[in-house]
């Protein structure tokens, strides 16, 4: 190992470690940089400061991948350089990293800088950290200036008022930077920066910046200002909002770029919260109506998600929704764009709790019915998944006639993800529609899923049965589903036979000892002679699973012989799982089996571990 000698106590001169950090192979460099803390530990705090960090600062020309790892590591390096007292040693390499081209690296460097800024004492902050921020803020290339945008907020609260003034000045400059990249960065940090400023400066400094960024020539800058507007509005007293923020926000809601309007729609709830009920009622509701009628589907989708208007004032919420929002909602139900409809479907049911029974029946129910017949499965699914809201208000019976065809169609959809989604709502539906309706209309669907082509569906169907039994009880299970499940044990397709086992796994506990012992166990035991090994080892797993539900006499008399037989099966996996079951149930005296000649290596390993783990 290079120059290092001395047997076990080998020494690690920095040269060797640096060799590793310089290796030609990127992967090896990356590995070493990821273990930078180990290297630092080997060197000790002082040599980390005097040798390792200067090396790292000087050699920052590398693959972005390596730089990213470095930027991340340095964020938690404080202890390795000797604690907060020396944390400023980390600034030079991070400063260089904050200027590289690759956004991911730069962001990580900024993140680490933000982290270690908290570890600086107020004095160090002014002596070391703030100068760095200023250098970045006045860098030549846009990268350093964008990085600077994210650092003002973390140092501002802890510095003297002169320095504060300088920081504000630098931020102002960046907000009117020549490059859109920098203005975007400034725009996205405007809200954060406003939060740490004194209120007077928010009004005198931030508001003009906000107004300017919100009318930038680039829509990518304007849309980021919307978010800042939400934060700023939350900071200002109510009486200032109308003058200082609202004109800009109103303008954003009618921006010529759909991206900006989308942002307004997307942040609408936050916006309502920030400006309070009065402005919401007078100002935002009309703007919202326009967003719901926007010419771009993207904007309508974002707006449709917010139709519930959670933040509307309690007393007028119902009226506002009835008179202003509902007419737009009615149009959206037959929108040309599927995403708009599906967004609406996911929230429209929630309106019923706000509007009450009569309005729901009169106005919303027809809309639900239209959406239940929509051509896109996602729309139908979203309606069905929120049935509980309606159930509370008007009961589900009103819908059941239209519900059924919708459910059946989704249950047989060509896309298995759609089928999966509807299965997940079955227990909910069953609970709300009642056992009679279920037996009559839905039971057959649930059984059909058990023999679906896709495993994920069969698995979900199994789980679904368990939840249904939890709802309807063991007796119902015995009469309706257990016979069908057990019948599949004779199917010619081994996948279906295995499904029987999986169902038993899921159902034994909820069905209880009697059903399990009397009805299920005989079927399982019989399947132990199946010709397909997968079925046999699943028998072993199944027996282990249902073991706790059975009584000990059944275990000894019926399960034990079968497992013993499976333990001598010619298939390795069957043997493995049989032995696992035996040991898992503490049925037998284990050591006699360990040395039997048919034992596979994996089983021995398994035993080894089960012994060493059991107390």
């Amino acid at each position, binding site marked *: 190992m290079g120059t290092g000698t*001395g047997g076990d106590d080998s020494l690690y001169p920095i040269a060797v470690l640096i060799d590793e950090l310089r290796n030609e192979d*990127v992967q090896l460099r990356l590995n070493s940089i990821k273990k930078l803390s*180990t290297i630092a530990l080997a060197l000790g705090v002082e040599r980390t400061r005097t040798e390792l960090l200067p090396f790292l600062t000087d050699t920052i020309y590398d693959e972005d991948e390596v730089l990213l790892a470095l930027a991340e590591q340095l964020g938690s390096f404080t202890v390795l350089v*000797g604690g907060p007292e020396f944390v400023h040693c980390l600034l030079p390499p991070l400063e260089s990293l904050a200027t590289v081209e690759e956004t991911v690296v730069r962001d990580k460097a900024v993140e680490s800088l933000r982290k270690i800024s908290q570890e600086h004492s107020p004095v160090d902050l002014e002596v070391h950290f703030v100068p760095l921020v200023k250098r970045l803020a006045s860098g030549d290339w846009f990268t350093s200036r964008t990085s600077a945008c994210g650092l003002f907020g973390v140092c501002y609260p802890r510095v003297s008022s002169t320095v504060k003034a300088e920081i504000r000045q630098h931020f102002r400059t960046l907000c009117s930077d020549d490059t859109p990249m920098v203005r975007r960065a400034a725009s996205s940090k405007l809200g954060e920066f406003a939060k740490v400023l004194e209120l007077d400066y928010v009004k005198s400094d931030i508001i003009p910046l906000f107004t300017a960024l919100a009318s930038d020539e680039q829509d990518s800058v304007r849309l980021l200002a919307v978010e800042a507007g939400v934060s700023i509005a939350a900071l200002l007293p109510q009486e200032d909002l109308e003058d200082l923020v609202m004109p800009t926000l109103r303008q954003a809601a009618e921006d010529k770029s759909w991206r900006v309007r989308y942002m307004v729609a997307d942040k609408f709830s936050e916006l309502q919260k920030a400006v309070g009920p009065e402005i919401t009622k007078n100002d935002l509701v009309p703007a919202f109506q*326009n967003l719901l009628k926007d010419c771009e589907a993207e904007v309508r989708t974002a707006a449709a998600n917010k139709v519930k208007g959670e933040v509307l004032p309690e007393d007028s919420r119902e009226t506002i929704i009835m008179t202003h929002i509902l007419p737009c909602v009615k149009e959206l139900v037959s929108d040309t764009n599927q995403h708009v409809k599906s967004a609406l479907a996911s929230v429209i049911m929630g309106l019923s709790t706000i509007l009450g029974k009569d309005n729901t029946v009169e106005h919303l129910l027809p809309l639900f019915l239209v959406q239940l017949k929509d051509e896109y499965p996602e729309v139908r699914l979203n309606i069905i998944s929120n049935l509980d809201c309606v159930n509370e208000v008007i009961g589900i019976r009103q819908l059941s006639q239209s519900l059924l065809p919708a459910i059946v169609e989704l249950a047989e959809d060509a896309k298995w993800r759609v089928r999966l989604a509807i299965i997940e709502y079955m227990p909910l539906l069953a609970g709300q529609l009642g056992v009679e309706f279920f037996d009559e209309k839905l039971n057959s669907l649930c059984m*059909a899923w058990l023999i679906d082509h896709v495993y994920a569906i069969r698995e979900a169907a199994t789980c679904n049965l368990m939840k249904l039994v939890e709802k309807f009880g063991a007796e119902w299970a015995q009469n309706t589903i257990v016979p069908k499940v057990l019948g599949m044990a004779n*199917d010619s397709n081994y996948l279906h036979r295995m499904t029987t086992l999986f169902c038993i796994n899921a159902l034994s506990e909820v069905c209880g000892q009697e059903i399990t012992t009397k009805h299920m166990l005989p079927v399982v035991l019989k399947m132990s002679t199946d010709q397909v090994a997968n079925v046999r080892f699943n028998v072993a797993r199944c027996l282990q699973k249902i073991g706790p539900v059975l009584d000990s006499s059944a275990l000894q008399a019926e399960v034990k012989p079968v497992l013993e037989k499976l333990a001598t099966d010619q298939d390795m996996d069957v043997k493995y799982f049989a032995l696992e079951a035996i040991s898992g149930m503490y049925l037998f005296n284990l050591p006699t089996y360990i040395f039997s000649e048919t034992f596979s290596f994996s089983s021995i390993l398994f035993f080894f571990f089960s012994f060493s783990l059991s107390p």
Partner: protein
Amino acid sequence: MSSRALPPNAAPALEMSAISASEKVDGFTRKSVRKAQRQRGCQGSSQFAASSSRPAAPEISALPQLKDASSTEQHELFMQKLQQCCVMFDFYDTVTDLKSKETKRATLSELVDYVSTNRGVLVEPVYPEITTMVSTNIFRTLPPSENPDFDPEEDEPTLEASWPHMQLVYEFFLRFLENPDFQPSTAKRYIDQKFVLQLLELFDTEDPREREFIKTVLHRIYGKFLGLRAFVRKQINNIFLRYIYETEHFNGVAELLEILGSIINGFALPLKAEHKQFLMKILIPMHTAKGLALFHAQLAYCVVQFIEKDPTLTEVVVRGLLKFWPKTCSQKEVMFLGEIEEILDVIEPTQFKKIQEPLFKQISKCVSSPHFQVAERALYYWNNEYILSLIEENNAKILPIMFGNLYRISKEHWNPTIVALVYNVLKTLMEMNSKLFDELTASYKCDRQREKKKEQEREELWRKLDELRLQETSAIQNNRHEIQFTYSNNNNNNNNLHDKDENPAAAITDRIESNTWAK
């Protein structure tokens, strides 16, 4: 299993005969199927999007023909027609305004004729009218893509619905710019930075026909308006930077690069710092983009142009490309190899010497790539006469770099074509310098063993470093004593500080250790 137990199976199976079993299983419909489903969705326009809030377009009626008007009336009529063409129509709505739409189309096409065939029509008052008309018709916020994961290589682009009008507007604007009477000094008041900025944003349109027009328009503007050149270049830089580092989405990259190709061609020597910065900070990083395949030809052309202009840039360019060499994407690797060959075609022998080592280390890796297209592309270098002469000239350096991998894959590569090509390359190399070749063959085994040993040493080092982490604090302290002692010549000046920081170090390792165990 009785059929009674699972009755629903039979019935739905009949109903769903249209859905094939495989489709039911994978759930992912093929692209072709999805495409067929949205055959109608390939027309879009933000400008004319159906919106009930939009006032209906006023009806426009045909004015008399320009050619029938007397020369005194012509100017007035021309202005009127320009204003008439500012009326916008909704092309989503295929039923209304049919007559007005046709009138506007006819008027536009008459205007195209008028400016291209007549002299003396471009008097000063028409400049603002023309700019307004063009701006109104073409400047708009582009609509969101109909297909969020639009793949320009696979999918049909969304076409601009209002193209019947828009095409004529672009054509008219081009004829205007190309008219011999066109006065840039007059026009620059209207075709200003703001105008150009909006024009550049349009390059993002999905409609390739529109991008083609904008490209020509921008090229003309760049040629005629000297005062806008620096601004245009800067804004293109911004678009590219946004593309590389922020959105990775911009439809017009190839077209912009095409314009830049001819701009670079015209750069004066010596190159300004601004231009070199553009090469290194934008063109080279652009190679990392996901959509490289869409504009690689244009990009490589720009890069080669730079090298031809100023050969001293060769080294930084090649090192830049090596830095961004694709790690996992073989298609991109093939493109990189193509670009390197283009560079090698024009490289000066002195420049070649500067980059041969890192470059051939990379080529040696490519040659042994398990992806046969990559290996094949790299091996094709040996069919290039000029490259071959460069290799021959520097064989003492290149042969040792290439030998190991070539020798190995000549025995190991799965693809017979590659093995055959490698044999040829080895043969060529042997003919170049048979003595060195024999030496390398002889030492091949030793070298491999040495590499293996080095590998083991590295593992050993890291193993020990990791152990160090887990050792007792006191043991670590002892180690540090020895480090300090043995290598004190590296850092004499640190010795006196040593005792002071011993305890903090112990505390640190303590903490780290407890962290490790806590996990």
